[in-house]
């Protein structure tokens, strides 16, 4: 290659690149053209020459016409086109440097025939008898040579509605027009045509043409009557729904006839109730007649009638929904009150307001109301929704309130329990009056001290104290004997150390112990404000008399039966006072003051024929324990009693005076008291150990027999202890053993069969006034076992 140094730029120049024949095509088999694509020009302008030869010849010709078909083309006209030979065509590119030839292309005219697309496509529509036609027309592709024979093309047409994807292709034949019938009314169509000669390929599709098919015009479809309603039972309205109108404007008319009539009327008023409605005013509304209503739709193409609708005005009454709903929330403690209905239908009846309770706070409620004229009407539409929100803010207050309540109640509980604990004893006694122990007057303390229970018992003259009442009625007082050293129950008591006071103690409670069978004693029933009836009226030992419940209770003297059950009327001979365990922690409960006099009488009088009976009275509320009072019979009695083979111990228990209560209320230790046994035939006397009193001479004198100990708290004054008879004796002594330590007492008492009863007789002075001494019968019980 020659280097050209003339240009300032150094340019490499070479011979042209190889051209390439793209396509050769014949439009009508009489002429054809070829087009080529040049290669690189090598930097220099290139010339292109097309050479061809026919396969049957050697001669090489050059392209006759480079122009007609455009640049880089060669047009072979009729004269140069031989459809039956194969042309071998090459294109050569030449420039100053050199030349380059394309690959030779074999061209067979017949195989490259492809006409141009048809032209002048035109469309028309025509609608007749509600059918639309499409009329398409076109022209064959133009040829360069107008004089060429009119060729016969085959045509193909394709069309589709605009929205669709798929073409519908129709083979048209050789005509240049076509009619399409199956068209979608109202759609817009796209149409194209193409053509083909008898050999070769189809031309390209012509340009698109579009056309709008007019909509079909139909008579209207059948309308439907939607509903008829009467809002107030005087007029009514009917609504209908029109169907498709067929593309034309449609008119509706409503016609009706009444039951029993032939005449058909037209709707009196189309306007009042809005479009597609008919309003029947008062004049035209009849009740209890069935209307036959139809709607007719008419347009240019025809008309159509709805199905008949039968209506009786009476049954289509539906009022309008209620108006002017007001919602109000009122706070009521922790609930909210909403006026008006809730959406989950509550029947309000005929009221125009309604209260709703128990709404959940924090929730939002939707309220709607509807109404109904009467039970044959229809429910109106629901009123528009109304919202109301129940606030939760009060929860805070709610919590505070509850906290306060909780705190207060726990405080109260604490206080209560504290009180209970402190005064539990008393309260228990209050609730469950203690079993009164017998109070025996005139018991010789010495006797008690000596612990001769039989003697004591006999001194006490208690035999077979008849059980007089059932459990419930029996009050047993405990005589609690208390060591005066520890405390003075009564200030006036100056009992020596061993002064035992008998304090009646109440049974601690009933729990289980109330039954006669229970080792603990009979429950003591407190009787409020009992008057002290003559407790002494029990006639006979066995007879238990209850002097009214009012405050007399009788303890039962039972004989050797272990249980002295006041409950059992078959009380046995021995007097036993059931001991009730006195819980140590229980304060000594003091009896109440009963009419001392009566007691006294009973005490003193030996006239009592009645068997000793423990009478307990409770005079005031303070008195928690009844006092068992037994009256000693005189010796005669005793002897009588003795006959009964029971040791009878009548005990008289004095109730503490009221004023003495307080001291008595102090919980005391229970001390032991000696109980002398009372011998049967001895006049039982209870001797208060400490007290040396004339009481001793009371009926109940406890012989100073062997001394057995029972735990008795100090007996004060003239309380008489009835002590459990010595077990050694045939009758189980009835003794009450107030026990200081209750738990041990039973055992002790049990172990100590020989319990001596010591009764401390209260001093005279105090006799009348002393409060009751309690004897804790709790210890007795075990001894009975």
């Amino acid at each position, binding site marked *: 290659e020659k280097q050209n140094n003339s240009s300032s730029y150094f340019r490499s120049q070479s011979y042209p690149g190889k051209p390439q024949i793209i396509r050769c095509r014949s439009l009508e088999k009489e002429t054809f053209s070829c087009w080529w694509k040049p290669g690189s020009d090598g930097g220099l302008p290139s010339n292109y020459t097309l050479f061809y030869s026919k396969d049957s010849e050697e001669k090489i010709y050059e392209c006759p016409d480079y122009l007609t078909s455009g640049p880089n083309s060669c047009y072979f006209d009729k004269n140069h086109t031989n459809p039956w030979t194969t042309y071998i065509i090459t294109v050569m590119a030449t420039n100053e440097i050199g030349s380059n030839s394309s690959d030779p292309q074999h061209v067979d005219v017949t195989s490259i025939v492809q006409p141009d697309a048809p032209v002048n496509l035109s469309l028309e529509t025509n609608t007749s008898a509600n059918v639309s036609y499409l009329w398409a027309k076109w022209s064959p592709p133009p040829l360069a040579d107008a004089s060429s024979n009119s060729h016969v093309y085959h045509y193909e047409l394709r069309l589709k509605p605009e929205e669709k994807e798929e073409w519908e292709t129709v083979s048209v034949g050789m005509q240049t027009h076509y009619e399409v019938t199956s068209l979608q009314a109202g759609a817009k169509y796209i149409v194209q045509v193409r053509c083909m000669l008898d050999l070769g390929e189809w031309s390209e599709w012509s340009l698109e043409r579009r056309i709008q098919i007019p909509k079909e015009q139909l008579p209207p479809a059948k309308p439907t009557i939607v509903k008829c309603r009467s809002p107030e039972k005087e007029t009514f309205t009917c609504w209908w729904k029109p169907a498709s109108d067929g593309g034309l404007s449609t008119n509706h008319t409503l016609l009706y006839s009444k039951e*029993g009539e032939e005449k058909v009327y037209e709707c009196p008023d189309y306007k009042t109730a809005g479009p597609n409605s008919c309003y029947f005013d008062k004049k035209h509304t*009849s*009740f209890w007649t*069935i209307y036959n209503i139809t709607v007719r739709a008419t347009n240019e193409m025809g008309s159509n009638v709805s199905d*008949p609708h*039968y209506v009786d005005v*009476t049954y289509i009454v539906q009022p309008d929904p209620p108006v002017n709903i007001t919602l109000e929330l009122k706070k009521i403690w922790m609930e909210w009150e909403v006026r008006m209905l809730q959406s989950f239908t509550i029947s309000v009846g005929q009221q125009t307001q309604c209260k709703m309770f128990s709404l959940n706070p924090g929730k939002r409620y939707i309220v709607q109301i509807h109404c109904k004229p009467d039970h*044959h009407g229809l429910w109106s539409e629901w009123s528009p929704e109304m919202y109301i929100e129940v606030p939760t803010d009060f929860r805070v207050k709610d919590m505070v309130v509850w906290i306060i309540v909780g705190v207060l109640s726990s405080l109260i509980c604490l206080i209560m329990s504290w009180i209970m604990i402190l005064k539990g004893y008393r309260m228990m006694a209050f609730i469950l009056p203690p079993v009164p122990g017998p109070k025996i007057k005139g018991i010789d303390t010495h006797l008690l001290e000596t612990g001769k229970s039989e003697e004591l018992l006999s001194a006490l003259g208690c035999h077979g104290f008849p059980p007089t009442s059932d459990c419930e009625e029996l009050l047993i007082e405990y005589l609690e004997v208390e060591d005066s050293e520890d405390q003075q129950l009564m200030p006036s008591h100056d009992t020596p150390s061993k002064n035992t006071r008998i304090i009646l103690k109440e049974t601690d409670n009933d729990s289980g112990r109330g039954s006669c069978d229970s080792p603990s004693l009979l429950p003591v029933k407190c009787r409020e404000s009992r008057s002290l009836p003559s407790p002494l009226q029990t006639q006979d030992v066995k007879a238990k008399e209850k002097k009214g419940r009012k405050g007399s209770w009788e303890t039962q003297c039972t004989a050797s039966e272990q249980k002295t059950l006041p409950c059992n009327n078959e009380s046995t001979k021995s007097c036993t006072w059931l001991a009730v365990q006195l819980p140590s922690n229980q304060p000594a409960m003091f009896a109440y003051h009963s009419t001392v006099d009566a007691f006294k009488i009973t005490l003193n009088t030996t006239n009592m024929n009645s068997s000793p009976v423990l009478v307990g009275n409770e005079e005031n509320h303070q008195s928690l324990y009844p006092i068992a009072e037994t009256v000693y019979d005189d010796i005669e009695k005793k002897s009588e009693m003795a006959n009964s083979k029971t040791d009878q111990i009548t005990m008289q228990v004095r109730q503490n005076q009221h004023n003495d209560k307080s001291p008595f209320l102090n919980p005391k230790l229970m001390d032991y008291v000696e109980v002398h046994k009372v011998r049967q035939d001895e006049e039982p006397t209870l001797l208060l150990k400490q007290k040396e009193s004339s009481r001793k001479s009371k009926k109940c004198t406890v012989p100073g027999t062997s001394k057995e100990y029972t735990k008795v708290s100090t007996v004060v004054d003239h309380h008489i202890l009835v002590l459990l008879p010595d077990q050694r004796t045939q009758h189980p002594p009835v003794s009450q053993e107030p026990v200081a330590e209750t738990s041990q007492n039973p055992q002790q008492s049990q172990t100590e069969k020989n319990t001596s009863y010591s009764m401390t007789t209260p001093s005279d002075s105090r006799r009348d006034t002393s409060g009751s001494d309690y004897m804790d019968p709790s210890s007795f019980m075990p001894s009975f076992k």
Partner: protein
Amino acid sequence: MYLYLHYEEPVCADLQDERYAQGRGFIAKAVNGCHTASLTTPEDKEQAQQIHHEDLLNLILGVLRSWNDPLVHLASEVQRIKEAPETILWKAVEIEEQNKRLLEGMEKIVGRVHSGEVGNDIYTPWEGLPSLQLADEDSRLFAFYNLLHCLRRDSHKIDNYLKVLKCRLIHDNNC
């Protein structure tokens, strides 16, 4: 007393709709006229309000009486319908009893109001019994439907008349 009618109406409606509803095309034909049609009854509230209450009472009585007989037969014939649910049977009996009670009550009232002639002339006999006993099931059912339809309508009428009367006499037209 009003309560009775209140009761009847929905019962009738139930009876009707339950079994003989439009599905069978009865309603289209059910305008066959009720046997009480010959009694000229006011067709709306205004007309009712214009009638003198004695006449209205007599009218009510007449209607009630006219229904006495049909109801008895209805109650007995309805049992012969196959597939009749239990409810229809006892409802029919109930309606009949209520009608009787209502009639008695009304007669008492009218007797008090209108001491003297009780106006026995307002009464329409009912001759529909054979139609309730037709062999052809469909026709028989249609006859039932018709009767119930009339009953429903008439009880509604009476209900309304009584309300008008009540309003007029007790509330002094202030309701």
